[in-house]
């Protein structure tokens, strides 16, 4: 075998596939093609980003979390509060959201380093519950009513956020795309490789020199920042923060979305978000409790059928797969 094969292997893995270009072109084109559904486009982009943030820890580092909404919610509240108390600049809101969530992510990352899956589950649920309680009780978060009256200024001074949602959709898509690029780079880097190793065999990873704890802390923090920015996008584009940004349902929903599309290849979260939001939109006239029932049913069916079989549906030819 010539040396070219080994080098080729790495080169081929990181190269952009044609379908990826199509995907993103289509994503941005949707703004022009569906001018009346821009709120939906906005929702999909935000949920997709949130799902990518969960993928970073679940799909790539094997960390089971049922409390990821904590970071989403913290980001949303941070952005909302900054807009209410400081200035309504959208980018300021996004930065505040990412920063706040990142700090909390870093601080809580140490909690999930040890222990079993169950312990991790509990700690993530516990942390999210703590923040939900705080938001519920505190004055400055608006309590059960959430934050309203958020006024966001025009994007880069020119593009106002209106009811049609065009600015919102473009902002969300752009931010998601940008963060996706960053994540893609991260996945194919040495850091990303070490994450895969510690997900597959933490014992051996340590034995070959991977500082497992440090890497987990790093990716957990990055994932928290991503989730925080997603939450901030929601606050900025809808100009409202409700208490349910921190709800358990939100953590469960993003997990479902990621599992729908398949964890471990970034596009899974985006596709899952698209499928879920479109479905939700189509059956919007059904009452809230029906939706929850179908959500549960889908989860049960996915598990019974087998996640790997579902994932095979999405085997777009040679797109990012692990």
């Amino acid at each position, binding site marked *: *075998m010539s*040396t070219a*094969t*080994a*080098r080729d*292997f*790495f*080169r081929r*893995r*990181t190269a952009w596939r044609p379908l990826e270009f199509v995907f993103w072109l289509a994503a941005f084109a949707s703004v022009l093609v569906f001018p009346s559904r821009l709120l939906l486009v906005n929702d999909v982009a935000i949920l997709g980003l949130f799902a990518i943030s969960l993928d970073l820890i679940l799909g790539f580092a094997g960390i089971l979390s049922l409390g990821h909404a904590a970071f989403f919610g913290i980001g949303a509240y941070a952005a909302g509060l900054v807009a209410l108390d400081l200035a309504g600049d959208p980018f300021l809101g996004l930065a505040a959201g990412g920063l706040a969530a990142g700090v909390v992510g870093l601080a809580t990352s140490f909690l999930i380093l040890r222990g079993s899956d169950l312990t991790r589950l509990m700690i993530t649920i516990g942390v999210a519950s703590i923040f939900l309680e705080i938001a519920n009780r505190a004055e400055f978060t608006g309590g059960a009513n959430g934050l309203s009256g958020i006024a966001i200024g025009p994007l880069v001074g020119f593009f106002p956020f209106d009811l049609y949602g065009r600015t919102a959709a473009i902002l969300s898509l752009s931010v998601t795309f940008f963060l996706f690029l960053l994540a893609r*780079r*991260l996945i*194919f*880097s*040495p*850091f*990303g*490789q*070490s994450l*895969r*190793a510690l997900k*597959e*065999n933490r*014992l*051996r*990873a*340590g*034995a*070959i*020199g*991977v*500082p*497992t704890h*440090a*890497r987990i802390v*790093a990716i957990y923090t990055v994932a928290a920042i991503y989730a925080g920015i997603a939450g901030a996008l929601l606050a900025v584009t809808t100009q409202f923060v409700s208490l349910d940004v921190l709800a358990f349902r939100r953590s469960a929903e993003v997990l479902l979305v990621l599992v729908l599309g398949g964890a471990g290849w970034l596009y899974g979260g985006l596709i899952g978000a698209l499928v879920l939001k479109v479905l939700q939109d189509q059956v919007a006239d059904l009452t809230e409790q029906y939706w929850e029932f179908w959500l549960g049913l889908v989860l049960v069916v996915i598990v019974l059928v087998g996640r790997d079989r579902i994932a095979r549906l999405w085997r777009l030819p040679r797109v990012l797969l*692990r």
Partner: protein
Amino acid sequence: MSPALETVGLEKRFGGLTAASGISLRLAHGARHALIGPNGAGKTTLINLLTGVLSPTAGRILLDGRDITATPRHRRARDGLSRTFQVNQLFPGMTPLETVHLAILERERRGGRWWQSAGSDTALVDEAEALLGRFGLETVMTEPAGILPYGYQRLLEIALALAARPTVLLLDEPAAGVPESERDRVLALITELPREVSVLLVEHDMDLVFSFAERISVLVAGAILTEGTPSEVAADERVRAAYLGEDGNG
């Protein structure tokens, strides 16, 4: 000059069970040292203590004179202490190329780089490929490790430990589970190791031990029974008795 690896009074207790007691072992530079003993003697426990998977209840471990008793696992690997596992510990979804390449990256302290593409330093990629070639794994280097035949996985297990260019290599039963036909290959690879690497070999296969080792330590019930050259150990009555099961945990 301090030994490549040394333990001083190393001890490990699990509640009432003493898995290792008063183990003082010295691995000379360039050593070809074997550790033998009946089942349950605590050989793998000792390896786990040396590599930091377990922490000792007493005693010290010194790597080239430096006290590493409290050093975390991954740092010991970076300091040059490498091991193989009795049961293959690989990354099933990763290819041999990626696996070995990662070990090399970590060795070069590049594992934390998130902004670079993994294969960007072609010299390291070439090194990984060359290493796999030495082990005869180049034909399968882009297959996921999990689907490789057992013999290949075992070779990868050893290759992976070598990728870090260790100064001390701990081999935990490298021939375990390897079919008769492949054992020669494993033995050849081990004997071809450069003298810069000091090797401690844990093995049950006595042919392998006696053709490889220049020095043998015998571990029985968590303690070193005796140590010496292969002929000394072979002649020792107590060693024979220990293996015949009269003593030891069996």
